[in-house]
């Protein structure tokens, strides 16, 4: 092989200001440089941590609908829904849907067995496999790998599992820079927002918003066509692909019989992230395992159709292991982190089928509530119908137990689901679960009241107490209620309690006439 020493003008687009090799190696992110100029405009949507105390649903939805851009997002999502779902499943995909549904349920019948086989195969292929019970455990595993590998800069391809772990915030807390490289993820990272959709993280952003964001990042006006903006991101991210010490990705499918990890993307960033840095960490939630490599023939086209109406995405990356001795590139280490986060306790229960999900995001697009309020209104990692079902079931997000109420129960999510998860039934059952739990103190209050008003004495006592004490209370008192009570009280005021019992005396007077 020959080599040219002089400048290479036709490769000018790939020029990096400082060399990616040697001692002067710059290990800070180029893509994020200028990030400090960006002022996040939607702190409620911040990615770092979802507020421990979520606002009550009526407030969340009201705020979401009031956000600038919600109507435009609704219009875009509705167009996508019409294009994707109005004509139903084409016959060849309908056949894959039947087969895919079976494969996913077959997986759940022996999930632990397939995970065991996956672990054995992957380890035999040279992959280091880690099991993590909680998102915190998983984040610690990744941090440890980073610390042992002297990692300063991480490039990342999109992964919902790492969103469950709030991994970026965790690594940044250790002084490690993390750069999202999927264009949509890069956009929401710069804006410091959570992804609003499973496969289209920046679907809620208009081109104008993205343009303004990139202007702030660049510190100057840059060309604003979609192509220009993508080219700007490409240039900045290319530098980081070369500089990064570690790449982090999700996993779409992990084949138990071969240990093959498959990633489905359109931009090529996952290929960069898995091939350029010296360490690759793949993070999967445990239900991503599939029985056989050959199942990819069914599940990949099914996922591609449901997610983006493509026959196949541009890139399918299939990884068996790290770089081998005789190979010129690829990561020296490949780690697989398998995250549970409460999923193994869903197996065998009434909601087991939710783990059949292949994360296409089509139920979100099909959902009229999701399209109207947007993904952030759910206040959780996963929005839309799948999020409303999954969030209450996962270990670290059980406070989202009221999310099943954020649905019209129209059933569109079932029709849109490539693996036929009965989401509408689950939403109804989860509502019943919620009521049977949350209603207990309320039922006690009703019972006390009934006991009191069972006797004329008890009734008169409450009336007198209200007439005397009621006027002493400020009418805005209910607005001081903490927590969920605050949501209930919005727009409400105490009745004029000085009048308590007045109706009865008035009525008694009328009768006397």
């Amino acid at each position, binding site marked *: 092989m020959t080599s040219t020493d002089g400048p290479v003008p036709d490769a000018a687009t790939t020029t990096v200001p400082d060399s990616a090799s040697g001692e002067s190696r710059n290990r800070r992110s180029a893509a994020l440089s200028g990030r400090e100029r960006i002022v996040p405009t939607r702190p409620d949507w911040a990615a770092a941590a979802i507020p421990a105390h979520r606002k009550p649903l009526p407030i969340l939805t009201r705020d979401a609908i009031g956000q600038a851009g919600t109507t435009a997002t609704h219009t875009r999502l509705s167009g996508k829904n019409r294009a994707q779902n109005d004509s139903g499943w084409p016959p060849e995909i309908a056949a894959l849907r039947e087969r895919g549904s079976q494969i996913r349920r077959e997986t759940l019948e022996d999930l632990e067995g397939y995970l065991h086989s996956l672990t054995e195969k992957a380890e035999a292929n040279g992959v280091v496999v880690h099991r993590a019970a909680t998102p915190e455990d998983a984040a610690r595993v990744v941090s440890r790998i980073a610390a042992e590998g002297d990692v300063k800069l991480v490039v990342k391809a999109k992964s919902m599992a790492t969103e469950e772990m709030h991994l970026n915030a965790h690594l940044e807390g250790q002084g490690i820079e993390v750069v999202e490289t999927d264009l949509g993820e890069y956009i929401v990272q710069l804006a410091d927002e959570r992804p609003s959709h499973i496969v289209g993280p920046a679907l809620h952003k208009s081109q104008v918003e993205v343009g303004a964001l990139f202007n702030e990042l660049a510190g100057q006006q840059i060309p604003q066509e979609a192509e220009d903006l*993508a080219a700007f991101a490409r240039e900045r991210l290319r530098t980081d692909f070369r500089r990064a010490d570690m790449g982090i990705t999700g996993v779409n499918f992990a084949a138990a019989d071969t240990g093959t990890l498959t990633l489905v993307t359109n*931009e090529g960033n996952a*290929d960069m992230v898995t091939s350029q840095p010296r360490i690759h960490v793949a993070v999967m939630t445990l239900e991503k395992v599939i029985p056989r490599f050959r199942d990819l023939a069914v599940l990949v086209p099914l996922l591609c159709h449901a997610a983006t109406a493509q*026959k*196949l995405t*541009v890139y399918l990356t*299939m990884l*068996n292991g790290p770089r081998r001795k005789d190979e010129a590139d690829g990561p020296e280490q490949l780690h697989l982190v398998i995250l549970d986060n409460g999923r193994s306790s869903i197996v065998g229960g009434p909601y087991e089928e939710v783990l059949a999900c292949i994360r296409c995001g089509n139920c979100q697009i099909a959902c009229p509530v999701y399209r109207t309020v947007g993904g952030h209104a759910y206040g959780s990692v996963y929005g839309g119908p799948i999020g409303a079902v999954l969030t209450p079931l996962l270990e670290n997000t059980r406070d989202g137990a009221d999310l099943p109420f954020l649905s019209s129960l129209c059933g569109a999510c079932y029709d849109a689901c490539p693996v036929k998860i009965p989401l509408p039934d689950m939403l109804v059952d989860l509502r019943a679960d919620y009521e049977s739990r949350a209603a207990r103190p309320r039922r006690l209050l009703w019972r006390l009241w009934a006991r009191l008003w069972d006797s004329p004495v008890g009734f008169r006592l409450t009336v007198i107490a209200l007439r005397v004490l009621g006027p002493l209370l400020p009418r805005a008192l209910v607005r001081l209620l903490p927590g969920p009570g605050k949501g209930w009280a919005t727009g409400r005021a105490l009745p004029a309690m000085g009048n308590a019992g007045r109706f009865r005396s008035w009525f008694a007077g009328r009768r006397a006439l």
Partner: protein
Amino acid sequence: MSGIDLAEQFRAALTALDGVAHLCTSAAEAHDRVVDLCAAASVVIDEGHPDTAGLAERLRLVDDPWEAAVGVTGVDVAVAETGTLVLSWGPGRRRSTPLVPPVHVALVPLHRLVATYADAIDVLAAMNPAPSGMQLVTGPSQSADIEMKLVKGVHGPGQVHVVLYPQPDRACT
């Protein structure tokens, strides 16, 4: 279906994705076409693939894929129905070659064409020993992350050229 039919089907599928298919009548013509496509540009080539043999000395090679304008590869199989290229990694078959340079040129003799994606999965499943990894490429890199507008060439190559040609000594699959 004959190799020519598959080639026509492949060309239609790739063209629909903004890729470019070149149909040649012989291996020699195919190599000439690759040299034309690369012109004076800097090139990285996968020399570990039999279908690229003899091409390297006719191209202006560089060592670093990041310095190259074009990456030239062979393929394991190509899928007629979808216009997909299947590349496995190994000695002289780098992950970066079809990925890092802005233009990817692939050589596909007709006997490497299969009809469907499922056929390609069968071929990959049968590979023994299994490679360290594989990449399936269906057209130029794209994104719709900015207001769902389709943009080409985001991280992977924005241009994909596939040069198809018959090899008389090899039967079509």
